[in-house]
């Protein structure tokens, strides 16, 4: 590397960071440092695959949904999740162009375990109340991070998130609708909701990631904040989630399954018992309760029907 090359690269980087600081939008064809590109690819592919994998626990409830309207509601929601995955994978695929990778490679990365997906989608869904909790609180958690990233520096991601957030409103209401019907129902239905909340509490806390990288050994939050892909830290997101949802949870007569949980008026922070972050590390490595089974299901179907993709590749236009 000559000095001239170093200066050009440095200059480009400097101009790039100025654009970021100025709140400019970066587009797919713009120059960007490798670190920015890689950070986006990791973040958006994980987001996209989480949507794709998230469809699997939810779709189990389509046949079991206890009314025609609920079946339709869940089908529409699962379709949206796949749709979100599609938008995000497209954004990722355009970013990966310089590396010569495409959708097929992304699928392989997922099956190899190189591409992670959110902890919540590795968990079991035991009852109908789980379908409600997912729509209400898991989607709720996702809305909090996604609405922050509507202002992301990367244009294509911000635009995809606009479409996504618009649909999340329906998801939140669909989830609330299920939970409210249960909360206003029989004793059996009410205890179903509490039991589901008890099981989902820790996964929900972990959804936002650890407060600092010391907890699990790594954290994307520093890079994503530096490049203005997001503006808040993991802990800030978690606190906002509590702000929005704790009052509503309590209003339905539900109990938070953490006896230490309370709001500290001095620090203006919600205080809670840390979830088991070692468990989180395992889950993210595809050792969660349903990780293997769901990946197998997805992989099996993809490979068993690969003849379809082979067949249509032969007839292009």
């Amino acid at each position: 590397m000559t000095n001239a090359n170093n200066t050009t690269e440095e200059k480009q980087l400097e101009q790039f960071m100025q654009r970021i600081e100025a709140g400019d939008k970066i587009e797919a064809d713009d120059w960007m440092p490798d670190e920015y590109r890689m950070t986006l690819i990791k973040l958006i592919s994980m987001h996209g695959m989480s949507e794709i994998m998230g469809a699997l626990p939810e779709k189990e409830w389509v046949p079991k949904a206890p009314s025609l309207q609920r079946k339709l509601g869940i089908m529409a929601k699962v379709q949206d999740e796949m749709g979100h995955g599609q938008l995000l994978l497209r954004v990722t695929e355009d970013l990966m162009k310089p590396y010569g990778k495409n959708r097929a490679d992304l699928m392989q990365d997922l099956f190899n375990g190189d591409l992670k997906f959110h902890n919540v989608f590795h968990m079991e869904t035991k009852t109908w109340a789980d379908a409600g909790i997912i729509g209400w609180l898991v989607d709720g958690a996702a809305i909090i991070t996604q609405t922050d990233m509507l202002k992301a520096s990367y244009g294509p991601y911000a635009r995809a998130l606009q479409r996504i957030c618009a649909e999340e409103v329906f998801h939140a209401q669909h989830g609330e609708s299920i939970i409210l019907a249960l909360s206003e129902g029989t004793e059996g239905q009410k205890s179903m909701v509490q039991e589901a909340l008890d099981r989902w509490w820790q996964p929900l806390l972990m959804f936002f990631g650890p407060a600092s990288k010391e907890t699990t050994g790594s954290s994307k939050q520093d890079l994503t904040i530096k490049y203005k892909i997001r503006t808040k830290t993991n802990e800030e997101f978690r606190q906002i989630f509590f702000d929005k949802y704790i009052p509503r949870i309590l209003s339905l007569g539900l109990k938070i399954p953490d006896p230490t949980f309370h709001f500290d008026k001095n620090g203006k922070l919600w205080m809670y018992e840390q979830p088991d972050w070692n468990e989180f590390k395992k889950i993210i490595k595809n050792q969660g309760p349903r990780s293997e089974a769901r990946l197998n299901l997805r992989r099996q179907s993809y490979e068993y029907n690969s003849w379809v993709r082979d067949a249509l590749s032969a007839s292009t236009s």
Partner: protein
Amino acid sequence: MGEENTFYQEYEIFSKRTPNSAFQHQFSLLAPNEDMALIMAQENFMRREPVADIWIVNRKHLKRMNADEKRTLVRLENKEYRTTKGYGYLKKKWRQYEQEMLDEKEILSWGGERK
């Protein structure tokens, strides 16, 4: 991996909300050919809005601009001669003749009924 490449072709999707609207760009999807792209377009991007028409364009048929070429799009802001801004003085002139100025609002209203 060759055949995987031709299965995953990139198509840009355009649609009209109503028969009288203009086409607008929606998003891109992967499909092995145009007919497949067409049967997937509406359900992928326009589930919650009316659609009157769809265009499918393979990305390889789009001419794109690189960073250098985009520089040819820049213009100076010294062209009042072709905007109404350059003729604002007419208002005062016409007053001398006890007439109103024909501005954009007035002229665009001429398509309606005779007053």
